[in-house]
């Protein structure tokens, strides 16, 4: 078995970022397997790739593989009917990234002749690790249905889990999942239950929980890996980067491999500038830098974290910033309290009994909440009163104030941190609510 000779198998996409937030206009770059390949190109290993793509991308694929110093590659098949372009409307994964895979349903695959000889290819090239992404061609089925005479670690990155597709799994196979790759956002424990109920064999399951860290299951052992929190520039391909780096480092020390993977993934999310990414990874190893403290906030446990949204949350018939923030937090599985929506709005017509009831419910919610997000589209005395009350309880208030409305210094003194967009907000929320690790 060759040391650190890694094969990556998957599709090549064009990632087209159409977010309004891009500073230099729209951005497009090669995606799909290229995220993993970029990460591996920064590490001292030999990388080879088998891929599927539409033919109009062939020249650019070869050009950029060369730039990554990847010399051995093979196109396994041609994609027709679809340009393999992924429109991305939410690059920072504030909520669902809203990938739009253009003409996905028109896609057909011409499997090249190489696919027929895949087992000979694999046997003739001694790899230490093989990383297989979910592809349009369902390459993973090949590994499930063929007896392969190869001695290496095999990892599958599973998207859109269909449990019946894994029933022929083997007990030396390893699986990457994420909270967004499973149907109905399964938690790690529910995923494990599914595996057990369906008697699906595996060697390890690596369950990535985005900004909250990662869980690794091997035999009866569980390993918790932190995430390194920064305000990301983007969240595209991060799971793929994690996969690749983890495979590279995973020899004996699983936790160390996980931490390095998480850290290098953080470096990837901080920039679209590939040269800067390379420099950062090199610095990590050349300068033998210590890893900083990270946080761990499992997907399951976020439901126990109660976030109180304070502010004038009563616009009707329009999507408001409250809706956007609630949507984002709920996507990440936090419990969100919107007191006006849940307890009622006090107006001039509200009778006294009802006023008392609403206020008591609001107080209960404030007492039970772990953190407050105060949203201030304009000066609102009720919101300021809630800020003061929450601060006096010794709890943290995050002020969401992109328009710089709040000027009162006493109010500002009660605020732990002011943020101006949802991405910043998420960064702070995870930093505060996560367990330092």
């Amino acid at each position, binding site marked *: 078995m060759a040391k650190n000779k890694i094969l990556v198998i998957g599709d090549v996409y064009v990632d087209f970022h159409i977010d309004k937030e891009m500073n230099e206009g729209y951005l497009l*770059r090669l995606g799909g397997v290229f995220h993993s390949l970029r990460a591996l190109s920064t590490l001292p290993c030999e990388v080879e790739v088998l891929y599927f793509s539409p033919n109009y991308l062939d020249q650019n694929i070869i050009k950029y593989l060369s730039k990554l110093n990847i010399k051995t590659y093979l196109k396994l098949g041609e994609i027709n009917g679809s340009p393999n372009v992924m429109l991305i409307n939410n690059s920072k994964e504030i909520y669902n990234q809203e990938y739009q895979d253009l003409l996905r349903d028109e896609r057909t695959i011409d499997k090249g002749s190489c696919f027929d000889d895949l087992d000979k290819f694999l046997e003739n090239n001694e790899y230490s690790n093989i990383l297989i992404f979910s592809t349009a061609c369902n390459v993973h089925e090949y590994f499930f249905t063929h007896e392969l005479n190869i001695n290496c670690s095999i990892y599958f990155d599973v998207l859109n889990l269909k449990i019946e597709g894994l029933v022929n799994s083997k007990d030396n196979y390893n699986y990457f999942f994420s909270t967004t790759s499973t149907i109905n956002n399964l938690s790690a424990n529910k995923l494990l239950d599914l595996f057990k109920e369906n008697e699906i064999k595996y060697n390890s399951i690596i369950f990535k929980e985005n900004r909250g860290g990662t869980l690794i299951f091997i035999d009866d052992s569980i390993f918790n890996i932190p995430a390194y929190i*920064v305000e990301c520039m983007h969240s595209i391909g991060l799971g793929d980067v994690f996969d690749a780096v983890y495979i590279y480092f995973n020899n004996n020390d699983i936790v160390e491999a996980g931490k390095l993977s998480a850290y290098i993934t953080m470096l990837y999310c901080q920039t679209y500038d590939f040269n800067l990414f390379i420099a950062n990874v090199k610095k990590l190893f050349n300068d033998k830098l*210590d890893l*900083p*403290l990270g946080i761990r906030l499992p997907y399951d446990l976020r439901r126990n974290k109660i976030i109180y949204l304070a502010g004038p949350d009563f616009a009707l018939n329009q999507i408001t910033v409250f809706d956007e923030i609630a949507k984002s937090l709920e996507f990440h599985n936090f419990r969100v309290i919107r007191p006006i929506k849940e307890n009622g709005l006090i107006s001039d017509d509200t009778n006294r009994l009802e006023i008392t009831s609403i206020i008591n419910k609001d107080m209960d919610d404030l007492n039970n909440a772990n953190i407050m997000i105060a949203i201030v589209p304009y000066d609102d005395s009720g919101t300021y009163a809630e800020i003061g009350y929450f601060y006096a309880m010794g709890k943290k208030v995050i002020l969401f104030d992109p328009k710089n409305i709040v000027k009162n210094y006493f109010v500002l003194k009660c605020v732990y941190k002011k943020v101006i967009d949802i991405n910043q907000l998420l*960064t*702070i929320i995870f*930093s505060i609510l996560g367990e330092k690790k």
Partner: protein
Amino acid sequence: MGSSGTGKFGNYTGAKNEENKCVEDFYDINLEEVAISDFYTSLKTLPDVGSKVYLFEKLHNKRLAIKDSKKDLIIGYLPIEYNYLYTNCILNKGYSYDGQVIFSNDLPIINVVVELNGKK
């Protein structure tokens, strides 16, 4: 590899946007673990308001530490959300950070608040 515009693949830098995060002023940073940090544990007191401080350029116990400029003792640590300063700004771009204590109190709980300015 990325691109500005949609004409072709290229390399997106976005350098201007990333630079801004290093030079913004940092107000009202509540330091963490003040009660168990060197300054308080060895001197049994907190730094005065107005004391000069600086951000230690290396990680200490995996964290970014704020030191008192005169006594060179760790007063406390920056909250985790400031970790980006380490990779992005200190290591990559050579920024350093100094500032002062703007609030310091030990009742009802030990609390030190600083402000910092970044410079190259």
